[in-house]
């Protein structure tokens, strides 16, 4: 089973839910936790353990200027503006390249080949006997988060229970994280911003065909607008976490709520059971 945790709005508590869910479940079953928020991964802060780090690379074209006829076909083909062919010079912008390989295919003289370019890392650790943590990390300044997310998810392929912690928003990194997941937890907060972005996130999950349920975090008890929205769209509220100073303090120290206050383990186990019921085909 693959479970994604997303939110729309940032800072609603995705990683808090992911870390505590993984911690709780790993007490009884094997869990793989994947930090797909590769631009600012943070799950390793809850599970500080030495990790094995592997490089993530993408292929980028290398053009042999000496034999290039400067016909310009590769530059015309590139939809991303990564190649500009001048009468006697080729300009290549690696950060615009999407590694599609099209330039190589259209070159009539076959003088373009690909070389790997480092864009990030995947760190694998075993912080608890039943918990594998996979953290994708994109190099600073690199725009291609999707390739690192793909690499991180690939490490988890075949594992029985995979929990993917997504980046906020609704753009490519979120789509890549949700893609192929059986169910999705959307974490929101009862503020106008939380609800606005929740609408967008629900839309993304629906378009991808991933069943979604809602966790309301930092609830001040005035969740009426969120509850009505969920009711209208037939979305189940899977769990409500109160706005609580002690929970905030635990979280801020980098501790796990379910470890410090073990009674919370029941709530997170219940959250998992509800997710399983929501799963495709169930």
């Amino acid at each position, binding site marked *: 089973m693959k479970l994604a945790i997303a939110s729309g709005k940032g800072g609603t508590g995705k990683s808090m839910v992911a870390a505590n869910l993984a911690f709780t479940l790993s007490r009884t079953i094997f869990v793989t936790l994947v930090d797909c928020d590769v631009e600012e991964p943070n799950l390793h802060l809850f599970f500080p353990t030495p990790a094995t780090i592997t490089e993530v690379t993408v292929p980028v074209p290398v053009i042999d200027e000496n034999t290039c006829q400067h016909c310009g076909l590769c*530059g015309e083909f*590139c*939809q*991303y*503006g*990564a190649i*500009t062919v*001048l009468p006697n*010079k080729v*300009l290549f*912008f690696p950060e*615009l390249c999407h590694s599609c390989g099209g330039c190589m295919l259209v070159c009539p003289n076959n003088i373009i080949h690909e070389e790997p370019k480092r864009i990030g890392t995947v760190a694998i650790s075993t912080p608890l006997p039943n918990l594998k943590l996979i953290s994708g990390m994109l190099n600073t300044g690199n725009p291609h988060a999707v390739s690192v997310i793909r690499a991180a998810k690939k490490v988890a392929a075949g594992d029985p229970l995979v929990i993917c912690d997504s980046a906020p928003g609704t753009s490519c990194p979120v789509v890549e994280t949700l893609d192929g997941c059986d169910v999705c937890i959307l974490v929101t907060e009862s503020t106008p911003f939380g609800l606005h972005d929740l609408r967008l996130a629900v839309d993304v999950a629906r378009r991808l065909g991933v069943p979604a349920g809602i966790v309301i975090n930092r609830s001040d008890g005035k969740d009426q607008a969120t509850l009505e929205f969920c009711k209208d769209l037939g979305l189940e509220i899977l769990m409500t976490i109160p706005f609580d100073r002690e929970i905030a303090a635990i979280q801020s120290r980098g501790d796990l709520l379910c470890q410090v206050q073990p009674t919370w383990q029941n709530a997170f186990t219940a959250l998992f059971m509800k997710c399983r019921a929501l799963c495709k085909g169930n």
Partner: protein
Amino acid sequence: MKICFTAQGATLESLSEDRFGRAPYFIVVESEDGSFEAIKNPYADGGGGVGPKAAQVLIANNVKALVSGQVGGNAKEVLAAAGIAMYTYNAGGSVKNAFDQFTKNTLVRS
């Protein structure tokens, strides 16, 4: 010599556009006789990498100088390599006003 002005519309009376890659129109003026041609920028609503693509439009049209508000790093590199001079105009006036300032040589070269 052909000079390109980034513009919000297709005439000399149109307001100049500060952005280069996503400018709605390129107004290419022939400095010899003042005649002009309006080119609709096919990359105005593009997702990414529009700077180098827009620069290629200028190269294809044999433009020798560009007058715009701000040109991004990638586009600048392409334009510089193609030998196209870049001048900054961000006073918010019409293309005609930008052209007058260009001919009076009051624009700063970037």
